[in-house]
C-alpha cells in the first residue's frame, strides 16, 4: 500500500513537472522582414529575444520590421565592420564561446571560454576585443562565491590575455578577490576603461592592455562605456535601495571628472552603448532596448521591443 502511494506520487509529480517544463513559453511575436543581417552603416544590431539570434533594424527608424540572422548569441557587439558574438557553449557544463564574425556574420575565429556569457565589446576599429564571463564552478561546495573572468584579445598581434586578473592596479594591493569586468577601449587600441571590484567596493579603472597595468579613477562605478569622442564614460553607479538592480546610469566627463545622472531611473544592469555623442542605448530585461540622452535631460524611449545587447554598425 505504502509502495503504491509512492509510485502514484512519482507518476503524479513526474507528469506535473514534465507538463510544466513543456508548457510553451509565452510566444513572442515580432515583425520580421526577409533579408541578410549585415554589419553595415546605419543599422542597429541586437540579439532578438524571440529567437536568440542576431538581428538588425535601420537606425533611422527602429520601429521597422527586423531582419533576423541564423547566428545565436547571448551577447553581441559590432564595430568597424566586425562582430563579436558571445554564445553559450554547447555542453551541459556552463561555458562560453567567443565567435568573431565578418560583415556578413561569417565566422572568422572562435575562442572557447570558461564561464557563462556576460559582456562583449570591440574597439571602434574592431581590432581589440574583450569579453567577460561569470564563473561559478566552486559555488558547488560554497554557495556565494562568484567571480568574473575578463579577456582581452588583440586581433592584429593575436596576443590573448584569457584573464586580466593579473593586471597591476596602482595604489591597490594585489589580492585574490580582485575581479575585473566590462572593458571599453579607447581609439588608440591600447588604453581601456573597466570595472575593478575588490574588498566589497567597485572602481572605474583606466588600463593599458600592453603594459598590463591600470590606475583607479573613481570609486563606485561599473560597466563603463566610452563615448565615440573619447571624452566621456557612461557607467552604472550603485545607489541605495532594495531590489535586484540597485543601479543608476551616470555619465562622467573625463576632463572635469564631473558626473551627471541620466534621466533613466530604472536600474540598468548592462554595459550601455553610445548611438552617437549625445545618446546612449541599453537593454532592460523583458522590456527591450531603450535610449536616453547622455546629458541627463529628456526621457528614455523604447527603440526595439523583445531585444537586448544593442550596438551600432557605423563603419
Amino acid at each position: 500500500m505504502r509502495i503504491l502511494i509512492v509510485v502514484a506520487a512519482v507518476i503524479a509529480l513526474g507528469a506535473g513537472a514534465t507538463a510544466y517544463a513543456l508548457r510553451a513559453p509565452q510566444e513572442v511575436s515580432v515583425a520580421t522582414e526577409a533579408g541578410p543581417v549585415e554589419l553595415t552603416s546605419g543599422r542597429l544590431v541586437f540579439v532578438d529575444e524571440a529567437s536568440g539570434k542576431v538581428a538588425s533594424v535601420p537606425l533611422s527608424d527602429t520601429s521597422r520590421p527586423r531582419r533576423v540572422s541564423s547566428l545565436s548569441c547571448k551577447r553581441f557587439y559590432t564595430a568597424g565592420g566586425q562582430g563579436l558574438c558571445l554564445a553559450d557553449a554547447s555542453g551541459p557544463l556552463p561555458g562560453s564561446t567567443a565567435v568573431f564574425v565578418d560583415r556578413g556574420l561569417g565566422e572568422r575565429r572562435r575562442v572557447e571560454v570558461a564561464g557563462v556569457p556576460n559582456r562583449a565589446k570591440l574597439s571602434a576599429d574592431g581590432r581589440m576585443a574583450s569579453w567577460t564571463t561569470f564563473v561559478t564552478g566552486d559555488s558547488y561546495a560554497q554557495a556565494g562565491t562568484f567571480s568574473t573572468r575578463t579577456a582581452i584579445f588583440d586581433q592584429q598581434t593575436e596576443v590573448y590575455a584569457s584573464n586580466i586578473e593579473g593586471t597591476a592596479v596602482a595604489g591597490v594591493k594585489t589580492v585574490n578577490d580582485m575581479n575585473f569586468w566590462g572593458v571599453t577601449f579607447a581609439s588608440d587600441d591600447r588604453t581601456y576603461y573597466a570595472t575593478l571590484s575588490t574588498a566589497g567596493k567597485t572602481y572605474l579603472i583606466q588600463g593599458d592592455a600592453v603594459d598590463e597595468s591600470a590606475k583607479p579613477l573613481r570609486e563606485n562605478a561599473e560597466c563603463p562605456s566610452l563615448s565615440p569622442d573619447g571624452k566621456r564614460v557612461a557607467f552604472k553607479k550603485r545607489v541605495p535601495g532594495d531590489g535586484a538592480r540597485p543601479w543608476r546610469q551616470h555619465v562622467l566627463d573625463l576632463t572635469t571628472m564631473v558626473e551627471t545622472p541620466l534621466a533613466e531611473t530604472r536600474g540598468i544592469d548592462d554595459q550601455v552603448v553610445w548611438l552617437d555623442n549625445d545618446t546612449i542605448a541599453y537593454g532592460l530585461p523583458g522590456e527591450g532596448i531603450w535610449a536616453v540622452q547622455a546629458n541627463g535631460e529628456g526621457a528614455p524611449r523604447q527603440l526595439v521591443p523583445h531585444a537586448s545587447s544593442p550596438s551600432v554598425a557605423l563603419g
Partner: protein
Amino acid sequence: MYIATARQAPASGGTGRIAGNVLALGAVSLLTDVSSEMVTAILPLYLVLGLGFSPLQFGVLDGIYTGVTALVRVAGGHAADRWQRRKFVAGLGYGISALGKLGLLAAGTSATAMGLVLAGDRTGKGLRTAPRDALITLSSEPSALGRAFGVHRAMDTVGAFLGPLLAFCLLWTLPARYDVVFVVSFCFAALGFLVLVLFVRDHRDVLPRVAVSLKSAFGLLRSRPFRRVCLVACGLGFLTLGDGFIYLLLQKKLDVELAYIALLPLGTAGVYLLAAVPLGSLADRVGRWKIFLAGHVALLGAYVLLAGVSGISLLVGVLVLHGLFYACTDGVLMAVAGPMIPDELRTSGLALLQTGQVLARAASSVLFGALWTWFAW
C-alpha cells in the same frame, strides 16, 4: 532457499542487516539531497544572471545563515527530545525545505523575499539533521552503528552526486529555464518528505520519564567522554578548510579550465560514497575513534599534497584523500557520540555536537577567507 538461509546467518562483525528505518532515512536523504544540490549548483547563476543580483550581495547573504542554523539546530534537537518526537521535527525540516523550492519561484526579483526563502531553507536543514541522526542511532544495533551511518551517508551522497548533474542537464536541454529546475527540485523534495512520512518510524520505546530541559541538554557536556568528543570535533573542525577552498587551491595549482572545477566535488563525492560503508564497518571493528582520527590524517595528507605535488597525482591524490576524510569522519563521529548520550537526550546531544562543529568550521572559513582575500597566493 539458499539466499534465505544465507540471510539467516547471525549478524557478526558489522555484516548484519541494516535496519529498515535506516534505509528509509537513507532514501529520504538521497531524494532531499538531489533536490537541494540541484538548487545549490545553479543558484548563483540564477541570482546573478537570471535576476541581476550583484555577486557581492549574494555572498553576504550566505554568511549570515550559518549563525541562524546553529540556533535552530539546538532548539530543534531540544524540541524533539522534550516531546520525544524526532520524526515530527525532522519532517518539519524536510517539509520547510521542500516548500522553499516553490518559494524560490515565488520570490521573483525581490532581494528581501529571496533572503527569507533561503533562510527558510537553511532553517529546514538545521532542524532535520540532528533528529535524523538520532533516529539512526536509536534504530541500529550499537555494535553496527558505524556501518549503519556508512549506509545512510552513502545513500545521501548518491543524491549529492546526482543533483548537480541533473540540474546542469536540465539547463542544457532547456536553456535559462531556472524555473523548471526549481519545479523538478520541489518534486524530489516532496517525494523525500512522502517517504519519510510513510516509511520512517519514530522510536517509541518507553523511556524513563525524566524532565528534558535545555539545562539537561547542556548538562551532557559534564560527561567527560562526550565533552572530549565535542572538544576534539570542534578543534579539528576549526583546522578543516572549507571544501570550496580545497577546490580553489586545486584549480589554481593545476591550472585546469575553470569550467571543470564544477566536476571536482564529484570526485570527492564518488570516493565518499564508495568508501562510506566499508569504512563504517571497519570503524565498528577496530574502533570508531581511530577511524575518525585517521580521516583527519587523510585530510592532512591532502593538504601536504596541495603544498608539494603537482599534475595528475595531485588531482587524484587530493580527491581520494578528501573523499576518504568524509567517509572516515562524517557518519563515524555520530556513531562515536551516539552511544554516549542517554536515549531521551539523544537528539539534543547530537545537535549540540553538530552545532559546535558547524560553528568551528564557519569560524575557520571566515578566517581563511579573510586570509585568502587579503593575500595574493
